[in-house]
């Protein structure tokens, strides 16, 4: 994953410079906007104390569990529904309906079922990610080239060979779209659920704590950390996708 200075680093440096200028100008109350230097100092302190690692770990694993569960269930289910287009046709409205429900609304239901614990947060992340995975995997199969399936059939391929050696590969670019969108969604939901009741650890709960304690540098540092987490996850996925789906831009 190579970083390009002009595209990936320079805009961030520019933003930091602008931020520093605004802080130094005295236009904004430091209570509302800490300076980049103060924020960086607070970040260094949090890392030195090691507290932030605990929050980072909790957030990371919650999101990962929910996301992986959605991947393991959503992708095969989506492939199945896409392959049997008629069943997808029957369920499309239902999938759209569930996709239209803001996942965070499910949190109270998850609390009722699983109680105040990790499972309820993971369940909401799963709920938010799984419909995106199902939808994109199904569409990947539905829009795959039928000529390839026909070519394989003429060559004598059986149904399971058509699925495992043609359909999955043809749907891969769209499956990756689903993975990337649902990972972003997973991060959003994961952090928001931590900001609600019952989370002792996690970046979301640290943001709430920093806000109530008027610890503005800590608040901004945690927000930046969440942003960097999402940014890094997305970039890693893109690099992985470009390696796996090497034919995507060639077709």
């Amino acid at each position, binding site marked *: 994953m190579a970083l390009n200075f002009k595209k990936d680093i320079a805009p961030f440096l520019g933003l930091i410079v602008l931020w520093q200028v605004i802080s130094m100008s005295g236009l904004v109350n430091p209570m509302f906007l800490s300076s980049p230097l103060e924020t960086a100092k607070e970040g260094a302190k949090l890392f030195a104390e090691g507290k932030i690692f605990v929050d980072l770990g909790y957030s990371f694993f919650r999101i990962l569990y929910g996301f992986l569960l959605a991947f393991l269930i959503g992708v095969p289910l989506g492939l199945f529904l896409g392959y049997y287009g008629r069943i997808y046709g029957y369920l499309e409205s239902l999938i759209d309906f569930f996709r239209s429900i803001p996942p965070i609304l499910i949190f109270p239901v998850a609390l009722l079922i699983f109680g105040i614990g990790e499972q309820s947060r993971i369940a909401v992340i799963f709920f938010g990610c799984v419909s995106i995975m199902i939808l994109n995997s199904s569409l990947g199969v539905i829009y795959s080239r039928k000529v*390839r399936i026909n070519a394989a059939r003429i*060559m004598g391929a059986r149904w399971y060979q058509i699925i495992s050696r043609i359909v999955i590969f043809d749907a891969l670019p769209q499956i990756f779209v689903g993975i990337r969108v649902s990972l972003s969604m997973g991060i959003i939901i994961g952090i928001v659920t931590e900001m609600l009741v019952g989370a002792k650890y996690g970046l979301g709960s640290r943001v709430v704590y920093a806000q109530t304690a008027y610890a503005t540098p800590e608040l901004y540092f945690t927000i930046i950390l969440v942003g960097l987490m999402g940014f890094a996850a997305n970039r890693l996925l893109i690099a992985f996708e470009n390696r796996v789906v090497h034919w995507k831009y060639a077709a």
Partner: protein
Amino acid sequence: MNGINVRNVSRKVKLPDGRDEIIFADFSLTVGDGEVVGMFGPNGCGKTTLLNMISGILEPDSGEVSIFGRKPSEKNIAYIFQDYQSSLFPWLSVRDNILFPLSIRRTKKSEMKERLHCLTDLIKMPFNLDKYPYQLCGGQQQYVSVMRGLISDPAIMLADEPFSGLDYTNSMWLMERMSGILRKIKIPTIIVAHDIEYLFYLAGRVCFLAGKPARIIREKHTNLDHSKEDSLDYSGLKEAELELRRYYAEEGAYS
């Protein structure tokens, strides 16, 4: 025994407005062993449907299709699709694309290597097999489809407008090679093309398809002998073309 035998076949298709249209009614065609037949006709006259029925992708509503007396599904068929980009597997290298028909039959690696060696010995491969299809030009990609069809030692070859997605240079390049392949591999072959010149260059017999339901309105023997390098005979090409234009204009086949 005829290589390809299409006997009294009927087939209707559903139009977008829900109506049924009869594409073939009591249609028959035979292709002898080693014979190369060209199919020429206006768009939508049923050329691709015919190839799909012969290959077994489509079942006729009535009638029978047989390949050397057997059902299409019981024979290896080399099918060259018009859209080479959609028919090749871009995630596989050229080598793996060509070997795909063997790999799905769980052929031993040593045997696959041997078969590929024999094929490349017989038919020259003017590019690196480790490349991916999208790294080749159009004509070469279509050539890979031909190779992939031939690797499994097919009983027949069906080519559905193999040149139509290519520019002039690529078409000429591929046509030269197809001609060479047909000279070496003598299997019953049907080639569908929009350009009558290509068919006169490659086929020993050209059938002109028209009407709804489709029927063969003319047949023309080109005197082309694939065993001889320079047996090309374009005599009759012009008159056939003129005759056809007249016929299609009268029948409204282009409408």
